[in-house]
Structure formats: structure tokens, C-alpha cells
């Protein structure tokens, strides 16, 4: 008797489980995606919004909590026009002839690009407004870079970060593409080179920073004979602003060239052999094969890695912090490091404001890159 009852209970439990199972199957879409959505909402979007509020207030830690006082745009004003503007934007010097030429050439190019768009066939009102805005911001950034770098002035963290990204990414693309083209030839031993070339990417940036501190030591470093030959042994890279920035950039290039190399190599290897073969049969030179066939076909992959490196490059912090400690002065500070140093000085609102300026810069450059360059490239392929 009791056995009968318990079986029925068991059966009912089983059917409930089956019901729950069927219901769960029905909800599978939500179950698959919701955890990720919740994590991103909770730990990216919510902090991002909160950060915006922090950047508009003065925050201090008190016992068991935080005190927030809304101050409007004060933190931003401090960065752009106030006491921190030399740190953030830099100190503009009088324009030199070289600076004038560069500026004129840059503005000429911007005007020409706009003119071509206006004369083109597929222009839209939105596209024109967006391009005018982009050209305005780009013009301002160009002026900022030229007036602080090519003069007696000194660049602020915004300019330094832009220089890091621009120099690093261009050199990395050139080196990475060159290496990929070398390795893609079916030379014996290429697996060895593939593995070796990959290594720097895996190394902790903090380790890279120390490595390059050792290597750039002109007195005890391995390149001592070279420095001694030129009589530079008592010159220190890290006390000269451009030397220190150079060391940071060399470290970053050393570390991230492999990333571009490995993706471009893989892209080159997946190209159909027949295309290159047919071109060679038709008498194309290596040069033509590269410019007319290989390069256009790997451009979509290349445009994606460049986008990734652009975005990641703006986050640079470990290298300058460890390699040069941001110095001499604030010469090598990137925007992230800038935000961290203000945070350490307990100006938390100001730190959030710098972080937001970085976010705005990255977004601006990323959106421009995608809309003006990458979309065209991927549409072609």
C-alpha cells in the first residue's frame, strides 16, 4: 500500500521535472544569453553610467561609504581650461615653419576629402554633418599635436596617447605585414619562425616594461658597446622626454607586432593559390602580385586587426607606468595612467573625467575609422 502511494508520488515528481524541463527548453534562448547580458549590464554598463555621474561630482570616501557632491562640468573644465590643462592637453608653443607646413598639409587634406565627398554622388545630409563634425575634431586634434610637439611647447597626456597609438599601430602594421609576407613563402623552418615571432604577445606588459628598462640602460645594458662607440654612455633614455617615449613605443611595438603578424599570416595562407598562380602565369611580377592581388584580398582582415590594435592601444598603461613611471615629469603618461595618478591623489571625480575623455577619444577615432575606412574595405571584398 505504502509502496503504491510512494510510486505515485515519485511519478508525479518525475512529471513535474519533465514539465520544468520542457519549460526550460522553451526558454533556452534566454538561458543561453541572459547570464552574459546580466554580467555586461552589471559590470560594464552600470559602472559606465555611474562613472559619468562620478565625473560630474566631487567624491570623497567617508566612514562606511562615499560622499558625492554634484559639481556639474567642473572636473572637465579643469582638464580643458583649468589647472590641469597643461597635464591633459599640453602647453602650446609658437608655431614653427615645419609645424605650419604640417598643419597646412593636414588641413588641405581634410578640406580635399570633404570637397570630394560633397562633389561625390552618394552624399547624404547625415553623412555630411558627420563628416563636418569629424573634420572639425580631427582638425583640432591635429592643431593640438602640431602646436605641442613641433614647437617649444610640451604635449599633454591626450597628445602623448594619440602619438603612442599612431606610431605604434603604423609601425606594427608595416613590420607585421612584412614578416607575414616573409613567412608565407614556403621556406623550410617557417614553423620555428611562426612560434618565435608569436612570443612577445604572450609576455606580461609589466615584464616587457622591465625588459626594455634593462635594454635601454646605456651604462649596464647589453647595448653598452654601441652607446660607448657613440659616446652616449651617460645619456639616459628615461630622462629625455622623447627618449622615454621612444622606449615606451619600442616596447609596445615589440610586444604587439606579433598580433598583426599572426592574423595577416593566417589571412595570406587562406588566399586561394589559383589566383596568385594565374597572375604569375600571366607574367605578373612579385610587386604586382602583392599590390594587385594579395593586399586587396587581405585588407578586410587587416582592417579588423588595425581596429583592434587602435582600441587596445589607447588603453596603454602598464608600459609607461613601469618603464618610466610616467616620467620624466609627466612626459610619458598615457590617459589611463593620468587617470590613475589623479585617482591616487584622491581626486576621484577628476580621474573619472579623464577616463571619460579617453572613452570619448577612443569612440571618436573608432567610429571614424569604421565609417570612413573599414566599411569601404569590407564592402569591396
Amino acid at each position, binding site marked *: 500500500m505504502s509502496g503504491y502511494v510512494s510510486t505515485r508520488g515519485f511519478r508525479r515528481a518525475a512529471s513535474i521535472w519533465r514539465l520544468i*524541463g520542457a519549460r*526550460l527548453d522553451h526558454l*533556452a534562448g534566454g*538561458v*543561453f*544569453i541572459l*547570464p*552574459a*547580458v546580466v*554580467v555586461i549590464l*552589471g*559590470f560594464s554598463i552600470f*559602472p*559606465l*553610467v*555611474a*562613472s559619468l*555621474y*562620478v565625473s560630474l561630482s566631487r567624491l570623497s*570616501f567617508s566612514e562606511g561609504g562615499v560622499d*558625492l557632491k554634484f559639481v556639474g562640468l567642473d572636473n572637465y573644465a579643469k582638464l580643458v581650461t583649468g589647472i590641469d590643462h597643461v597635464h591633459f592637453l599640453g602647453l602650446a608653443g609658437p608655431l614653427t615653419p615645419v609645424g605650419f607646413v604640417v598643419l597646412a598639409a593636414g588641413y588641405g587634406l581634410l578640406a580635399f576629402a570633404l570637397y570630394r565627398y560633397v562633389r561625390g554622388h552618394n552624399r547624404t545630409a547625415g553623412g555630411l554633418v558627420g563628416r563636418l563634425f569629424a573634420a572639425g575634431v580631427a582638425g583640432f586634434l591635429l592643431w593640438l599635436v602640431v602646436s605641442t610637439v613641433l614647437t617649444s611647447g610640451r604635449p599633454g597626456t591626450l597628445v602623448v596617447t594619440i602619438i603612442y597609438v599612431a606610431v605604434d599601430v603604423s609601425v606594427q602594421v608595416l613590420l607585421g605585414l612584412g*614578416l607575414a609576407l616573409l613567412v608565407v*613563402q*614556403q*621556406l*623550410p623552418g617557417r614553423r620555428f*619562425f*611562426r*612560434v*618565435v*615571432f608569436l612570443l*612577445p604577445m*604572450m*609576455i*606580461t*606588459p*609589466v615584464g616587457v*616594461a*622591465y*625588459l626594455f*628598462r634593462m635594454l635601454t640602460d646605456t651604462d*649596464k*645594458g*647589453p647595448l653598452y658597446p654601441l652607446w660607448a662607440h657613440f659616446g652616449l654612455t651617460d645619456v639616459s633614455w628615461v630622462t629625455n622626454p622623447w627618449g622615454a617615449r621612444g622606449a615606451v613605443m619600442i616596447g609596445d611595438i*615589440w610586444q604587439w607586432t606579433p598580433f598583426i603578424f599572426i*592574423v595577416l599570416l*593566417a*589571412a595570406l595562407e587562406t588566399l586561394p593559390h589559383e589566383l*596568385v598562380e594565374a597572375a604569375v602565369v600571366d607574367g605578373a611580377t612579385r610587386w604586382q602580385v602583392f599590390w594587385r592581388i594579395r593586399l586587396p584580398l587581405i585588407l578586410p582582415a587587416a582592417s579588423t*586587426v588595425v581596429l583592434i590594435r587602435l*582600441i587596445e592601444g589607447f588603453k596603454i*598603461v*602598464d608600459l609607461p607606468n*613601469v618603464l618610466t613611471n610616467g616620467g620624466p615629469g609627466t612626459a610619458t603618461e598615457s*590617459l589611463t595612467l593620468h587617470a590613475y595618478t589623479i585617482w591616487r591623489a584622491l581626486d576621484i571625480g577628476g580621474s*573619472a573625467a579623464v*577616463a571619460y575623455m*579617453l*572613452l570619448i577619444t*577612443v569612440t571618436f577615432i573608432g567610429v571614424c575609422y569604421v565609417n570612413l575606412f573599414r566599411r569601404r574595405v569590407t564592402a569591396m571584398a
Partner: protein
Amino acid sequence: MALTRRRHRSVSTTTIGVPTMLASYVLLFAWAFVVLFPLYWLAVTSLKTPLDVNDGPFYIPWRDFQPNLDNWRYIFVDLGPDTFRPYINTVVVGLTSTAITLILGSMAAYGLVRMRYRVSIGAIASFVAGAALAVVVIVAQVPWQVGAVAGFALFLLLLNTVARRVKRGFGNDDIAFWMISQRMLPPVAVVIPIYIFFQQLALLDTWGALIIAYVASHLPIVVWLMRDYFQSIPIELEESAAIDGASPYRIFRTIVLPLSIPGLVATFLFVLVFAWNEYLIALFLTSANAQTLPLTVAAQNATRGPQWWYMSVLILIMIGPVIAMAIALERFIARGLLVGAVKG
């Protein structure tokens, strides 16, 4: 030599002349030297005494100087616990956060590839309104529980009234773009509220805080790479399993995941390296107990000045595991990355 040449000719489409080949090898070895020499210098320095380091550059052990293991002994024996604690922290945080990220990320990626989503703009708007109310209530010094409940109530209220009338919405691609674009976010822009949040929960300087922060910041990579990988898997197997009555979870676990092992390995390696090397978030969220290796290494400078001989040992043991894994799994990396980059 002749044999290799012949085999190589059959593979390649363009024959390579001897001058080109020589030039290629010169360039290849030059860059290999650029890559390997710093690592060699690290290894050599770790075997030097302070005197050897300070007396100028010595290049070759036994010839220029007498190598010894004193630095290794110092780091492992004398400094024992101070070395092992950050090491264990790094291993635990790295592996746990990578595993969680990989599970959550590949689930989301699979959902985005094989299921259809439609999030109406109305629902998003009501969520934003609810969140805004919650923030306003919390900022007005009301206990956060009240704010959370009020926000959630407003969200439900709007969802069931206004939001139902809005027809337009976002599909899978929009959601995928939204998730992947989170990678654009500089960590420094979100780390301050996260710091305050963990401070309130008394989670600062613990494994949990780091793991949660790392999962959030690395999810976009997993979604991005795995989504492209899942797209390259033929759907027929999954369809026939579904006809046989297998649940979506079972299909995912027993068919899709085993088929995606190359992609999973590449993604795992990637995320693990990111977590292993992460610096900024750890800098904000940890101080002593949960400190990870990059912080320990970076801190050497501040506390003792650059003692290159010890630093080299520390850096070597820090980068050793990731380098070993990179060498072992090199094949997977290019493949896993390429899928993402070409379609991305």
C-alpha cells in the same frame, strides 16, 4: 637539401630564387634575434650576481661571468611565501575567471548564432527608466535596497504597459555588436564605480572581486571569437539531434562544444593570457592579499629599486607558463583568431 627543395617546389606556387631566399632568411633571423635576445638577456641576468650586473654588460655565461643560482634560491626559498602568494592568486584568478568567461561567453555566442532574439526598444527604454530611477533613489541617500526595488518595479510597470505598444526592436546582430563593442570601453572608465561597489560589499582585495571584474571585461572577446566559430559549424548535425528530441542544452553540450574544441582552445588561451597579464584592474582592486604577479613585479621597483638580478627571476617565472602554453598551442591561435578577424 635537394629533397627538401623538390618537396617545397611541389607545395609552393611561385619558385623562390636563391637570392630572395637568402635575403628572406637574413630578415627572418634578424627579427627572430630581436624577439629572442631580450628573453636571453633576462635568462642570463637571472644567473648573475649583483656585481656581474653592475660591472657592465656580460653576455655569455662561463666565459664572461660565473653563473649561479643564488637569485633563484633567494626568490624561491628566502622570499618563499611572498613569491608564492601572488603566484597562487594569479593562477586561481586566471583559471577561474577564464573558465567562467568561456562558459558564459560561448553560451551567449551560441544563442546569438542559433536562436532568434528580438528585444523591443520599449523594453530597453523601460529598463533604462528603471535603472535611472534606482540610481536617483540611491544618490538621494536612500538605502540601495529600496532603490533596487523601486527601479525594478518601474521597469516591470513600464514593460507591461508602454513597452508592449512599441513594435521596433533589435535583433541578433545588434545584440552581438553591443556585446563586442564593450571591448572598446577603457577599463579605467568603469573601474572606479566597481571599486566603490566592491568596497561596499567588503570584497576589495579578494579573488572574487578580480574574478568578477575579469569575467566582465573579457566576455566580449569570447562572444566575438566563439560566435564566428559557431557560425562555421554546419547546422545539419544539430538539426538532426533536435529532430531526435534532444534539448538545446544537450545539443550544445554534446554536439556543439566537442566540435568547437579548436576555437575553444584558442579563446581559452587568449583570455587566460589577458587575465594572467592584467594590470590596471588588479592595481585598483587589490592591495596585498589578492595581489597578482604583474603587480608584485611592478612593485619591486618602488620598494627596492631596480634589482635586475631578482627581477629577472620573477619575470621569468611570471611569463614561463604563458610562453609554454603559447608554444604548445600555437596552431590553434592563428586559426581561432583568423575566423574572428576575417568576418569580424
